[in-house]
Each structure stands twice: as C-alpha cells, then as structure tokens.
C-alpha cells in the first residue's frame, strides 16, 4: 500500500497529512486530535462520528480520508467552545439533552444540518427525521428535540437582530 499526502481543512485549520488509502476520515480526524468525533460502531449504524463534509453531514467512518482530500470539514468542536458555545451546544447543555454525552457531537451536527436547511421552528417530526441516524441510549430523544427547538428559536432571534 502506498501512502499519499492529502489536505484536510478541519474547523478552519489546514492539515497536511500523509495517509494510507485504507484510513477512514474518522480515523484521520481522531489522529489529528479531533476526538470530539466519536467511534461508536464504524459502520454507519450509530451516527456518533457525524461531521460536515463540504456542507453535508455524513458518517465519517464511511468516508476514506483520501476521498476528503481538499474538502472543508466541520466537527462539533469547530462549532463552539466552552467560552463561546454555539446556540445548539448551549441548548443541549441547558435542556438536559446531554447525559453521557457520547452521542452529542454527532447529534449536534445532524441537528445543525436540519437548522441550516430549515431554520425556522422545525417541527418535532422534522427533528426526529433529521436525527434518525443518530442513536442515543440515554435520553430517549425528548430533551434533544427540546434543545433543537430552543436553539432554533434563539438563532432566529439572533438573525432578526442582525
């Protein structure tokens, strides 16, 4: 197997890495210290590894790093920080949507994808659909839905003020 130099733009940072072809984007991101991207199943069943790849939320375990060469990648850690959290992250923290937290990064990315497409007051059914590929074993999803609706409300208000 021959390794190749590729470029991964992650959360606004440019990484040049030399990788074998059989390395998944999940593995590459975690090796670059983006450990907010979680390994839950490595086969697309759980959504814990969800990241945005060129604007689309996908399972990073099902993308080869080479396939993401030159791409723009956004992970949950790129959305906000403890000092300055994204409204979704804040809402998750406040609504009880975070229990063990292991699904949270992937879940937030899936929720963000929904709000990008449907920013104004997504319905419960729309939210359930959008996160149907993200398994949560702790919350039963209700407080996650509350959080997404809270975040949508806040983000709509913020946009109105701008």
């Amino acid at each position: 197997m021959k390794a190749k130099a590729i470029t991964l733009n992650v959360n606004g940072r440019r990484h040049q890495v030399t990788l074998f072809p059989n390395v998944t984007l999940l593995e590459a991101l975690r090796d670059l210290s983006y450990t907010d991207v979680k390994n839950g199943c490595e086969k697309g069943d759980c959504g814990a590894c969800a990241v945005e790849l060129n604007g689309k939320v996908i399972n990073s375990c099902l993308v080869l790093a080479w396939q993401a060469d030159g791409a723009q990648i956004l992970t949950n850690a790129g959305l906000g920080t403890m000092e300055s959290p994204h409204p979704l992250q804040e809402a998750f923290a406040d609504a009880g949507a975070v229990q063990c937290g292991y699904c949270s990064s992937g879940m937030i990315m899936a929720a963000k994808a929904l709000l990008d497409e449907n920013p104004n007051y997504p319905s419960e059914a729309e939210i359930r659909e959008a996160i149907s590929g993200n398994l949560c074993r702790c919350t039963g999803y209700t407080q996650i839905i509350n959080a997404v609706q809270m975040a949508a409300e806040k983000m709509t208000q913020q946009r109105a003020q701008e």
Partner: protein
Amino acid sequence: MLPEFELLMPRTLPEALEMMDESSRVIPLAGGTSLLVDLRGRISRPQTLINIGGLDELRGIRVEEGYVVVGSAVTIADLKRNVLIAKHGQVLQQATTVFANPLVRNRATIGGNLAYGSPAADAAPPLLVLDAEVELMSKDAKRTVPLKEFITGVRKTVRHPRELVTAIRWPIPPEGSVGVFHKLGLRKANAISVLSIAVMLHRKNTEDYAQVRIALGAVAPAPIRVVAAEELLGRGPLTPEVIARAAQLASESTQAIGDIRGSAAYRKRVITALVQRLLTNLAEGTKEKKHNESKGYHS
C-alpha cells in the same frame, strides 16, 4: 480497521474507464456505505478500489428524449429533494424518504445501491416499476440493460468487471400515473428491509384499464417484478376480487427465506396483505380521481 487496498483516484470518467480497463479486479467505490462496511467486516477483500463518487459525468438529473436520466453517483439525498424526481419518479422519491437514515443518504448513491446487488436494495423496487434501465460503460463500449435483468442473484449483477454503472434511466411515466412504495422494517428508521413493495398504476390517456406494475424487495435472491400478478391485473377493472388474487400471486411468486428478521411464512403473509392494501388504495384513488388519503401510521 479496513484491510489494505490500493485506491485509484481518477479525475474524469474516461480516466476511470481507462484504469478499469487495465485490470479486471478493480472495484468501484462511490458512497461507500455498503462497500466499506463489507471491507471492514472482511466479507470482501478487493485489492484495488477506484473512487468514482466525485466524477462530474456521473452526477446530474435530467430529462432527455422522454427519459429521466440520473447519473449513477447521484446520492439518495439528492434524489429525495429533486423536483424532476418528484414529478417523474415519485415512487422512487418515496423510497428515498425511508432509505437508511439522513447521514447515509448524503453519501449512498443510486448506482451503488443497484450495483451492490442486495436483494433488499430499497431503490430497486421503485426503479423496477418505473421500468428503469442501467447504463454501463467500459473503455470502448456502452450498453443499456433493463434493471429487471441487471440484478441476477444475491450480490450478483451482470456488470462486467471492467464496466461502470454510469446512469440509470426510465421513461417518463404517462400523465396520471401514480405509485406507492412501502418498506417494512423492524423499526421505523435506519432498518434493513424485512420486505419492500413498489406498486405503480400507469394511466394511459384513455379510460382503458391502467397497467399495473408490482415489484418486491428482500423476498427473493434479487428484487423482482411480479409479472403473473401484473398480467392478471391488466386484464380488466381492479375489483377487490382481482386485487386479492393478485396479492396472492405476489406472495406465491416470492422465494422468501427465514432469517433473524423474520420467517418466510411471515413475509409471505405480509406481502399478501400489503400488496392488497396498496393496490386497493391506489385503485380507489384512481377510480374516484380523488387525492388518496393516507391511512394508518406510516409517514
């Protein structure tokens, strides 16, 4: 961890076909949602993969000479929101709404779903009732194969090792045609089909009896058209008796197996019930030219 393999990264379709011509052991990779899972599970161990998901020539949805033509690398998510598909491939669009989950849909491709050749491929039954064809290209040749001849068995297709599935096409259904897709899984999202059904009524311009097409998934080694039932239904008006008999024929035409998701007997029974239900709903809608009210709890 994935096993070792070489990965070819062509930038154009001709380059891809050239690379595939050089070896008969190159496996095409697009969305990877089936293939990479197999590789990780050591179900297959190809030496070389060729990345075709990003090739521009394999994307795009257009209408051409009375056909809808969809590039093989078009994702299920793209199909789900496309207006041409809404208009001319509504039964396929229904399937996209219950296909896997939103994350997988953003990567899985229509070509990949067919080329993988699973008997449970959710895109197959709708495309079968749309009378779809698969376009295959190799370095020096191009051919079109009817979808009903494309998948021949479990994970078997007629694609030659040096060929790529480049597009899927179907004739624009006549005005007033209506179809429905139903997937049965053991949970309401992110589930492998226990069985799936696509039914379509093709209306002609006159008040002639509508042509019915029925396709089933996950109940035979390949997705199938239920020709016997279609012939019966095409002979006269869609009465409850004829529908019941057709549903029975559909069930008998299956080669359902028992597996961890259900027994053969269960699948056969539900095929009968669901084909009957779907045909009845469609027939009532067509007869009364009324918008069909959705019943039950299936969104």
